[in-house]
């Protein structure tokens, strides 16, 4: 903290025109060990350990220049003990394949560094940057720190805004975040930098329309790529692995409707991206339209994807996605094949949503209905047959002066076709003779805010999901899960929060601290000023899938204590 204050002061010495912005997030986590040692007096706490994680973001601005740095550090404490005179390591932090000058119990990483200079209407950047083309079908590497999947492109890019023309070019290798900020750091994984280069041009002001076109090429690093980023060009091979070309059209007010259209074609060169034995290229078409008749807002989307997500299959092990197509899917609706709704290789269908402004900005009920045909049976999916997805959702936003209620309820059915499987091993498919049933999900979300005693504010946030499964290779047991949070905001910057999670999913990788299925926790937050937040948490929460920005990650549960300080200068 002292060093940060020094940094801040240092900027003042540099001159009035320079500005240093610093954000720092420090978190100390004490994990309650999950593997108590048997028959060892007083050893039940040996498995406990502490983790200190810090993320420092510093950006120096001067004139038309910007220099940025993200420095991540992690250290484990009380992570080893002696048992029968032998040193036991509770958790390994740094494997042999990752260089660590701080030893195997601490890791420091210059996670992102970049320099940007604006030259008139052109902005040039070297170092770590982000890029998204169109609606993300061709390239979608954006800052996503919400679930520890932040991946940038380490290289160079230029953005030019020349009148009605915008031009973007980018080239670099992927740089995935290695230190996890919100989850246990167990075994820092070595990096694989995949080469990505692309260009996009947009032409604005063509009457009510804008058009754009883009192209992206990919070359993926092999598993034996060496130590990042010095693995050398040999790890990429002589050929490009994939090429993507696409175009977009956006038009406002034509026939009273705002339109967006995108088409992309995917040329896969690498055998690892092929579908079966055949060279199978892919394509994607997406359209959305919005109309505003009277108090109603109508939003429609339609899509037709064929082998559109194979690029992601080579980075599954890295835990992020290269491309991410648009969808209006309700993000919490995660079924066993959530990727089918969020990012299926082969899917067609549409969704329509209507919002009615009964009282604009105050009371808006809405309803949506999605119908999709998901044909994807491979890749990230484990469907045995194509399925038809039907998903109605209804909700209301009521934001009054004193009471606020945002709630929705939905019911999703993934109905599989009759199977055409060789179930008896005679080499003949028993066409349409096997009913694989349907996966069903009912979900409810509630966020309710109301005044509390003596002008204090209170919030109740809850979500409940109930799953019923058809014939499913992975999940066979119906289950319910939910979360509940009750927060009371006090005067003086204090907030008190109680959490409760429930899940009876037998496959979940955590167990409750109140009983097997029930988790409880409490947190106190204090904001001494607008730029600083201090949080103290004690208790447990469940493991599960969390999604953010179209990417989902299975995250571990937690049981223990946590102290975090976030501040900005």
């Amino acid at each position, binding site marked *: 903290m002292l060093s940060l204050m020094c940094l801040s002061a240092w900027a003042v010495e540099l001159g009035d025109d320079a500005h240093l*912005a610093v*954000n720092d997030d420090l978190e100390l986590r004490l994990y309650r060990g999950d593997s108590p040692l048997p028959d060892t007096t007083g050893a039940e706490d040996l498995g406990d350990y502490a983790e200190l994680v810090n993320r420092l973001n510093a950006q120096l601005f001067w*004139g038309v220049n910007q220099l940025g740095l993200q420095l991540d550090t992690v250290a484990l404490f009380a992570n080893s003990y002696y048992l029968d005179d032998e040193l036991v390591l509770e958790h390994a932090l740094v494997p042999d394949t990752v260089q660590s000058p701080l030893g195997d119990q601490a890791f420091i990483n210059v996670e992102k560094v970049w320099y940007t200079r604006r030259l008139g209407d052109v902005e040039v950047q070297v170092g770590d940057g*982000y890029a998204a083309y169109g609606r993300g079908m061709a390239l979608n590497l*954006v800052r996503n720190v*919400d679930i520890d999947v932040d991946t940038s492109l380490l290289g160079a890019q230029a953005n030019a805004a020349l009148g009605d023309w915008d031009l973007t070019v980018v080239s670099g290798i992927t740089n995935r975040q290695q230190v996890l900020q919100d989850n246990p750091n167990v075994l820092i994984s070595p990096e694989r930098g995949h080469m990505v280069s692309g260009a996009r041009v947009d032409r604005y002001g063509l009457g009510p329309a804008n058009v754009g076109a883009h192209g992206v090429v990919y070359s993926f690093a092999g598993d034996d790529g060496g130590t990042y980023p010095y693995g050398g060009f040999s790890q990429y091979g002589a050929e490009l692995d994939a090429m993507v070309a696409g175009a977009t059209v956006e038009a406002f007010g034509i026939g009273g409707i705002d339109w967006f259209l995108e088409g992309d074609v995917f040329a896969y060169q690498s055998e690892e991206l092929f579908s079966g034995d055949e060279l199978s290229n892919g394509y994607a078409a997406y359209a959305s339209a919005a109309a505003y008749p009277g108090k109603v807002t109508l*939003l429609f989307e339609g899509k037709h994807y064929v082998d559109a997500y194979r690029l992601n299959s080579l980075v599954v092990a890295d835990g992020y996605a290269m491309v991410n197509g648009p969808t209006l899917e309700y993000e919490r609706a995660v079924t066993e094949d959530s990727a089918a709704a969020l990012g299926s290789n082969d899917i067609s269908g549409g969704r329509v949503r209507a*919002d009615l402004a009964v009282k*604009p900005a105050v009371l808006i009920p809405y309803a949506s209905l999605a119908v999709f045909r998901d044909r994807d049976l491979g890749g990230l999916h484990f469907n045995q047959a194509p399925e038809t997805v039907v998903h109605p959702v209804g909700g209301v936003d009521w934001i009054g002066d004193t009471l606020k209620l945002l709630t929705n309820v939905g019911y999703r059915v993934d109905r599989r076709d009759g199977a055409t499987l060789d179930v008896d091993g005679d080499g003949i498919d028993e066409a349409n003779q096997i009913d694989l049933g349907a996966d069903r999900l009912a979900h409810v979300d509630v966020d309710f805010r109301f005044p509390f005693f003596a002008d204090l504010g209170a919030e109740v946030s809850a979500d409940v999901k109930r799953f019923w499964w058809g014939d499913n290779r992975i999940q066979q047991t119906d289950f319910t899960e939910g979360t509940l949070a009750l927060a009371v905001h006090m005067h003086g910057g204090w907030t008190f929060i109680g959490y409760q999670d429930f899940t009876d999913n037998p496959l979940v990788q955590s167990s409750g601290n109140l009983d097997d299925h029930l988790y409880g926790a409490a947190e106190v937050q204090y904001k001494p000023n607008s730029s600083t937040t201090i949080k103290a948490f004690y208790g447990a929460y469940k493991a599960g899938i969390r999604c953010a920005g179209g990417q989902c990650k299975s995250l571990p549960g937690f049981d223990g204590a946590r102290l975090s300080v976030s501040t900005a200068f």
Partner: protein
Amino acid sequence: MLALSLLLSGSALAGDAPDFSLRNTENDDVKLSEFEGQVVLLSFWATWCVPCQVEMPKLQEMHSELADQGFTVLAISTDDSRSKSRVKPMIKSKGYTFPVLYDTDTKVVTQYNPEKTLPYTVLIDREGNVAYKHSGYSEGDEVHLREEVDKLLAPASE
């Protein structure tokens, strides 16, 4: 250090708030520097962010009430490409009139709010300096925010 100091002394920025250029919901190019001389409230939000939805009516009230005093709200959507289609319909359905900008590739949020906490508020004074930052929204925060805005507006309105 000396060399760096000399390099930095050549700055041309009027204030310390980094300038940016983003497209709004009508695809017009909007630069922060176009609002020089005004008090600007940058509000980083997303369509899926519940506290953002609760805060927005308060921002609309301030935007409507104080526009003639040289105040504007720039609501910067951090929705990525995936959910960009939701942004304009949501704004139109709720009747908000402040400018809404797309930061689809996260360049501006990385500059102002690298942790991407939402909602995130940045107040910029008439000289282009960052005067106030605030993360999150809970009931009553708008009262303090309004006090900060009034302080920044006061010299020009007197």
